[in-house]
């Protein structure tokens, strides 16, 4: 354990440590963040969803993007796995299909940061019970 000898030491230490707590801090206010949900059912995982998720987490942490990556179950788009759903606060969720690491980076860059749509969007053709109520 290194000794904290000055106030600067404490600040530096805090900066280095913040990173590890980021995920917990973000989970405190999920509604104000971009929520990225990776479909992680068996078929998704087989198609490489875990890799996509790890890439997303990496990019988001590296570039300090106000987004939260969570995992979800099967969304039913088996033909287009891996699929991810992106929900920007105040907007309807958008589902992207056939996502790999490159596409994931593009989604963050274009859709999350700039709001531009890219190819590979799956039109929503379902309603959930919650919405019907």
């Amino acid at each position: 354990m290194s000794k904290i000898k000055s106030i600067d030491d404490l600040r530096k230490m805090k900066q280095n440590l913040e990173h590890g707590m980021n995920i917990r801090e973000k989970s405190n206010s999920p509604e104000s963040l971009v929520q990225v949900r990776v479909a992680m059912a068996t078929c998704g995982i087989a198609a490489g969803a875990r890799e996509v998720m790890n890439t997303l987490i990496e990019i988001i942490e590296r570039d300090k993007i106000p987004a939260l990556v969570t995992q979800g179950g099967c969304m039913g788009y088996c033909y287009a796995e891996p699929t991810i759903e992106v929900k920007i606060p105040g907007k309807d969720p958008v589902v992207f299909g056939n996502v790999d690491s490159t596409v994931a980076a593009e989604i963050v860059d274009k859709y999350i940061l700039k709001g531009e749509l890219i190819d590979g969007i799956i039109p929503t053709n379902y309603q959930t019970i919650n919405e019907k109520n």
Partner: protein
Amino acid sequence: MHLLVCEGTGCRASQSQEIVLNLKNELKKQNLEKDAQVVTTGCFGFCEKGPIVKIIPDNTFYTQVKPSDCEEIVKEHILKGRKVTRLLYEDPKTQEHVEDSKHMGFYQKQLRIALRNCGFINPEVIEEYIARDGYAALASIIEDMSPQEAIELLKASGLRGRGGGGFPTGLKWEFTAKNAADQKYVVCNADEGDPGAFMDRSILEGDPHSVLEAMAICGYCIGATKGLIYIRAEYPLAIKRLEIAIEQAREMGLLGENIFGSQFTFDIELKFGAGAFVCGEETALIHSMEGNRGEPTVKPPFPAEKGYRGKPTCVNNVETFANVPVIFLKGAKWFSSIGTEKSKGTKVFALAGKINNVGLIEVPMGITLREVIFEIGGGIKDGKKFKAVQTGGPSGGCLTEKHLDTPIDYDTLLAAGSMMGSGGMIVMDEDDCMVSVAKFYLEFTVEESCGKCTPCRVGNKRMHEILDKICAGKGVMEDLDYLENLSRVIKDTSLCGLGQTSPNPVLSTLEHFRDEYEAHVTERICVAGSCKALRLYTIIADKCTGCTACVRVCPTNAITGEKRQPHVIDPDLCIRCGACFEKCKFSAIHVQ
């Protein structure tokens, strides 16, 4: 992903340590160690449904988790992203499973300041506290504030003592700062004695560094270099976490000499108490720390002038301290914008009794009892009717239905004949007899009175005897007046808070439930049916099949009758044990 597992005393008692082990093993098996990390934390407050496992970032809140559930959690949730529905919290009103903690009524109305890190960080890792701005308040005060400026800020925030009295914390610091001496002391009162209150324990178990940091801030402000934490020996986990925290802070140089390279020196030592209620009173606490009998003495001199070893001493409660670092980080204005006109900030309450969500909550001052009991607490158990709530433990009083919409703060509770106390809240339903409740609390004070003042030592005992008599169906109407008189005398003539408040449960139940007392005395009836001696057992002839099961269990042979014919109970022989009631398969025994 982070898997937060509660390791507060409550959850540990239901095998949360094993859950941590199993989760780690299971993650290893699935090769997910890099993706998911198990973190042990302090109390989440939702003790009713412990052990708790919370999955971050989606805030999934698993309740009553067993070690055997770990495999499913990892395989389903962590690996495949499917929540384990059966472990999710079920809303008592809608009977629906709640997906995450953000949508649980229990958390929605809470505002966590003192409990900000409880259930969020690992209390045994100082780095997690530092990552959440830990020790930053102490650093900034040492860097650019004079002690006087810091005290002014605290005064402006409006923080009042959370141990019960509600004395302005800034003023207390100021008084101690003004008394010059070669040595002064900062004392943390962790002698939580109210039955049913456990906020101080939870803070010490879940976020010990916040208390250490605040004590150092206090030391800087009042000019003390020594801090003492007076904690009851029956809190082993809190003691262990404090010891770890003090050790880590010393190693990092956050306690000890020349903190942050400044002239300021401060260190903390633990003092163990034997768990006497009276030692929560500051003079008694100081005497106990000195190795003397834990008895209160007359104030003045106040501890701020002559305290521990005759030196100026500032005594603050755990929860009070836990608020301090945040106030300095976010400012006096921020803090004073929360709460009511005279009570600022939040208060932690320990919800207990006949309520659905038993646990620890932190709410802004000024919230109503209705919100606390029916929204956060999830209402009364088994759909029964709310009768009263006891606030302030054995020193407080009962509040009834008509108080449900009163905003809660120090002054409104006093005006309603109760008090804030340390924040215990015991909810009672229609099955609770208010005379018995008053008797229960008096039993506690009789036991805990130190014996120094005669009115408290003898008076409380006499009151307890009268209540016992009333519950046994032998009371007379004069007893009620006698109780009231005795209460006044004890309140007026006792030295410390224990005696001055011990008659409160009697006075407030007499005020709000006098009819219940009268029914006990005149009609010999206990409406709630809880006073055994006043119960009347009878057999409903239509339902009785004459099976003689009751005859065989009756210890006094009070039940007679022909086989296959309705039986009868002789009330003079019946000792009201209830054995027949439990035995009867035909619901033929009626209890009044």
